[in-house]
Structure formats: structure tokens, C-alpha cells
């Protein structure tokens, strides 16, 4: 599998920093699970974050707080490493779906001609909705415009739009600047994990007609 489209550096830094909401983190993590390059990239970014920490200007800790902290060590064992405390090693073949498998999801339902949606249960207080979209081969999604952001990681199959071809593992960071009409490649259905902030506006008369049905 050759991955062409990766999250931007800004997005990877925000992921490492912990400033992405959970829904966006899930889609980025799913890309990373597919992508050796980004697995390495986040290790590098973690290293750089550590370097910045080492060089951060110290903000003094009160003497009493320090003493209190050190006095806690007597009752605090250094834990042994055993199977229970180590994350399970996930075999390479199962990695791609591993992040998504942490979450429950609903049932498939039709949201348009040839398109099914399954909501992923990611509790959100930031208004991000996460879902899996399954589109039949050759489906042309209605022309639409993004208000807010829509991050997608392809799980299976491929779609194509103005910015190129997106196959399994590829990451698509669409925002208000993208005005596109994606279509699914012929031959195989396309399944994508999507995190959406804001909403999508259908353009063209057909899109406006089905918008109430699609509601994403």
C-alpha cells in the first residue's frame, strides 16, 4: 500500500501536543496506523517536544510542594513491568483498524444514492461528528462545499477529487478552501472514516434537493 497524502505538519504537531479533539485525533491516529512514515514523524515530533521541554525556562516550584512530593515516595512503589501494564502489541495486519476498534458504532443507514453511513460513538463537546461512510463503486458525491473542516482517512477503495486520488490509508484534510465534487473509483466500494466540524453545503440544484437527507 502506497500512501500519498499525509496530515500536514501543523496537524501532526497538534496531535502530538494533545490539542486536537478526540474525533480528529481518531482520524489522525487511523492514518498513523496505516503509515510507517507518520509513525516515525510523531516519534520525531515527540523528541522535539522533549527537547523544548528540556530547554523550557523553569517556573519555580514551591519548597513545601517539593518536600511534600518527595515525601510521597515512601508509599509509592516503583511498579514492576508486567503484561497488565504494557500496551498490547498489535500485529501489523490488525493495525489499520485498531484505533477505530476502541469505539462503538451504530448501524449502517442509507444517506443518499449508493452511500451508507455509520455513526462512530465519539462523545464530543467540540461539535465534531465522526462517522464511517461507505460508497458504491463509481458513486459521484454531489458537489459540496465545506463550512468548517472535514478530515478523512480512507479505509478501503479510493476516491478522486481536485486534489488527487485518495486510496487506503490516505488522509484528506479538507476545509472551507476546498470546493470539490469527489467520485469513487470504479471497481471497488470506498469506505472512509470521517471527522467533521461544522457542516457541508451542497451546491447545485440536486445537492440542495438531497441535503435534508444527507444531513452531514
Amino acid at each position: 500500500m502506497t500512501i500519498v497524502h499525509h496530515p500536514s505538519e501543523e496537524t501532526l504537531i497538534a496531535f502530538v501536543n494533545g490539542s486536537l479533539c478526540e474525533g480528529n485525533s481518531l482520524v489522525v491516529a487511523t492514518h498513523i496506523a496505516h503509515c510507517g512514515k507518520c509513525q516515525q514523524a510523531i516519534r520525531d515530533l515527540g523528541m522535539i517536544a522533549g527537547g523544548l521541554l528540556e530547554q523550557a525556562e523553569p517556573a519555580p516550584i514551591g519548597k513545601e510542594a517539593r518536600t511534600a512530593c518527595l515525601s510521597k515516595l515512601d508509599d509509592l512503589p516503583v511498579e514492576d513491568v508486567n503484561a497488565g501494564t504494557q500496551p498490547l502489541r498489535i500485529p501489523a495486519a490488525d493495525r489499520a483498524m485498531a484505533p477505530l476498534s476502541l469505539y462503538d458504532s451504530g448501524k449502517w443507514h442509507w444517506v443518499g444514492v449508493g452511500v451508507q453511513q455509520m455513526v462512530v460513538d465519539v462523545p464530543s463537546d467540540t461539535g465534531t461528528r465522526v462517522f464511517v461512510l461507505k460508497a458504491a463503486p463509481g458513486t459521484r458525491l454531489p458537489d459540496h462545499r465545506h463550512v468548517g473542516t472535514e478530515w478523512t482517512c480512507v479505509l478501503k477503495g479510493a476516491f478522486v477529487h481536485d486534489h488527487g486520488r485518495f486510496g487506503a490509508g490516505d488522509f484528506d484534510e479538507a476545509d472551507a478552501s476546498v470546493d470539490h465534487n469527489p467520485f469513487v473509483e470504479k471497481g471497488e466500494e470506498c469506505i472512509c472514516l470521517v471527522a467533521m466540524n461544522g457542516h457541508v453545503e451542497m451546491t447545485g440544484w440536486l445537492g440542495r434537493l438531497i441535503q435534508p437527507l444527507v444531513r452531514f
Partner: protein
Amino acid sequence: MHGPSGDAPADQAPEELIARIALSQDKSAFAELFDLFAPRLKYFLIRNGSTSEAAEELAQEALLKVWRKAKSFSADRGTASSWIFTIARNLRIDQARRDKRAQLYAMVAEFDDVDPDRPDELVSGYEHARLVRAAMGELPAEQLEVVKCSFMEGAAHSEIAERLGIPLGTVKSRLRLAMRKMKKTLEDLA
């Protein structure tokens, strides 16, 4: 041994201090690590938006977790400082909102598929840290500032542009230049 002020450079690399804790529950190693990292974590957390009290609390909590988990640190997977950063980040997001992000991070950190551009990595975390530090030291101040805003505050490029009063394109190009330089250092090792 250092006093509580803790801004003297460490006699020992933090990786070795953690090893001493893991090996013999060495409290003086912990004290040294505390003086080195707790005040810096506090600063980092304040820059990330915590109040001074909350940052101090979280920094201590993070260091106590370093003590408890010392045996699971492995220097060939990363540097001590990146590990401590990760612990503090996970505590921070868990405190803000109990969700599954820490699980996601733990999961992706374990993945080690081959990077086609960089097949093998044989350098210790300690060596990494030294080189990252050196590369960072060579960055022009204006680039370092943008790197700090991105990493410490998690600020979006547009926010950084607004705060520093520079165009968005300048933020992007400064960050790109800085990242390229630091990554080049890491890539040259492979």
C-alpha cells in the same frame, strides 16, 4: 546534589536518573529529576493555558508517575524528556476530559512499521536528545519562537500569526524551515 532551585545542569543524563529509579528506587535520582523537570513542565503547562496552581499540581503528578512507571521507560524507544512530555500531556488531557485519547496515543506509539524513506533506526534516545538539542540551539530566534508556540501552546498557525503580528505565510515558512532543520538532524542518524 542540586538544591530545590534546580536550574543547574544535571550531572547525569535524565535517562540514567530514570534507570537508577528503576533499578533501586533511588530517591536522590528522583530529586534530581524533579528539580530538572518539574519547574520546566510547570512552565510548559502554563504556556499551554493552565493556571500556575494547576500547572504546579500537574507537574508534580507527572513526576510521581515517572517514579511509578520508571521500569517501563526504555531508552531505545525515545528520550527521557519525550517520555516525560508524553506523561504530562496524557495527564493534562485526561484531567480536562476523560476520553480515549491517551489510549489512542499509547496505541500509535507502539506501531513500528517501516518508514520507506528511513528504513533503520539504530541510535539511542540519548544520542537523539543530544542532537535535537544541538539542532534546536542553532535555530534562529524567530524560528524557535514559532516552534515553541506550536508545540507548547498547540496554537494554530493563524493564531501565531495574529499574536506575533506577522503574516500567515511567514509563520508557515518559519516553521517549515525549523522543522526541516531538526528533522534533517534526526534523519541523518538513520
